[in-house]
């Protein structure tokens, strides 16, 4: 192990240009992937925020007793799809309208806005079908006048999310694939440059396992370094965009660590495949 590590580091020292080139190539392909991931992450969280606003609003006929209303709130609160239920009285509705639309303050008179219950849905139940089924169950109560949930809007958000998910997954796969291809060919190049060394090792009777060691460490280190540089580049870009274009969210620590480790893993696997091919002869 000690010797393998020494040999791997020797490769860095002996061919600093080639090693730097490998690390840079890995860094840039992961950087492209990282930027894409950042866009996907932010689009996803923006969509999630919009989705959170999906709610069903049921307007209550005036003169309904508070007991009946309280009973509905209790019933609806126990639906499995429902996250929260809130009762908005006539007075509260009026207050809110005046607050939100200050310049029309005088237009609103007491009693003009009906009381309502606002139903927010749990994550995963914000698709058009669940929303429709919840509102159907609300229709049963005869003191409920009208139900609104912005049907068109819900469908649009839902469709947008589906498209974004599909596009994100397929683009992400393509980006990852391109990164893997670039990284493994970079590593194969580095190994080809050392084929003489491999040849001599074989000639003097080194086992394949022994020969593999330094190359695996080499690939792992290059992938790790490339991943770190890519993370740095992504972060710098993110800061720049945040300052001049739009505020966004960066990867969480766990995601960042996973990204860097993915780079190291690709380096390791790329090396394993390339050395394996080299050793496969005979």
């Amino acid at each position, binding site marked *: 192990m000690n010797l393998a590590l020494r040999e791997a580091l*020797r490769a860095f020292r002996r061919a600093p240009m080639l090693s730097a080139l490998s690390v840079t190539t890995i860094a840039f392909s992961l950087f492209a992937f990282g930027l894409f991931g950042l866009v996907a992450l932010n689009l996803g969280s923006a969509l999630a925020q919009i989705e959170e606003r999906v709610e069903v609003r049921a307007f209550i006929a005036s003169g309904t007793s508070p007991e009946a209303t309280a009973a509905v709130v209790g019933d609806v609160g126990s639906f499995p799809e429902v996250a929260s239920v809130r009762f908005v009285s006539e007075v509260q509705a009026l207050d809110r309208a005046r607050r939100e639309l200050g310049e029309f303050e005088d237009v609103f008179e007491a009693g003009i806005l009906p009381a309502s219950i606002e139903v927010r849905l749990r994550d995963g139940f914000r698709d058009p079908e669940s929303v429709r089924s919840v509102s159907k169950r609300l229709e049963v109560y005869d003191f409920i006048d009208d139900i609104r949930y912005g049907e068109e809007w819900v469908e649009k958000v839902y469709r947008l999310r589906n498209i974004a998910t599909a596009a994100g997954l397929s683009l992400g796969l393509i980006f990852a694939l391109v990164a893997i291809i670039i990284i493994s060919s970079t590593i194969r190049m580095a190994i080809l440059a050392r084929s003489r060394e491999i040849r001599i090792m074989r000639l003097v009777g080194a086992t394949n396992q022994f020969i593999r060691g330094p190359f695996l460490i080499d690939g792992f280190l290059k992938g790790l370094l490339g991943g770190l540089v890519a993370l740095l580049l992504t972060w710098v870009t993110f800061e720049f965009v945040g300052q001049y274009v739009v505020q966004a969210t960066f990867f969480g620590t766990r995601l960042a660590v996973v990204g860097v480790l993915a780079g190291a893993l690709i380096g390791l696997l790329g090396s394993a495949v390339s050395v394996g091919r080299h050793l496969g002869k005979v």
Partner: protein
Amino acid sequence: MIRFTHVGKQYPKGDPALDDVSFHVNRGEFVFLTGPSGAGKSTILKLIYVDTRPTYGEVRVAGQSSVTMSARQIPALRRRLGVVFQDFQLLEDRTAEQNVAFALEVTGTPPTQIGPRVARVLTQVGLAAKATALPHELSGGEQQRVAIARALVNDPLVLLADEPTGNLDTRTTRGIFQLLRDVNARGTAVLMATHDLALVKSLDFRTLELNQGRLVYDSGAQRHTTADELDRPGAGPDVRDGDAP
């Protein structure tokens, strides 16, 4: 110790590289392998150090058969062979002693043994004074001595030399050849491929001559013991060849 039995080798393209070749080499023998370029000399050496396998027939080396040997057994066999090439095959970024030590390091020799063994073998090839020189600081003959030292450091049964003097001038060639004879005199068999006919003819060593993949002449054939006797453990060096001028 080395025995070819009706060996043929066909590479994917072209004519057969070897065609029904049979011969054997005893412990401690010195054998020339001659013939024009492309006659199959290198292929014979490659078959011995298992860089390739025969298409048909059997190659036996140090008790291992090409028919039954698994890929995992190859490294162990190679540690008992030393190989030297025309282009030396040294690592350019390592000193002479590091190049020699490399052969011991990659085979898991305890570090404490490496230094003394490298020093001993470099002295044997006459390069003790240049142990810390890089290959490009050495002459061609000196580089070949380093390569020979590397081949010898594991105390091989046989030294395989593929045109070891092909890149060297006449005077240097003589020096390298003398070194190979010294190596042989210490009991290591030497199998040397060369197309230097002048060198071969000036000496009375056993000669195997190849042409277009066929063994056309074996100067030692009639004087040889049977294959059964050759495989007997502890068969001694062939004194006649070791003492030849």
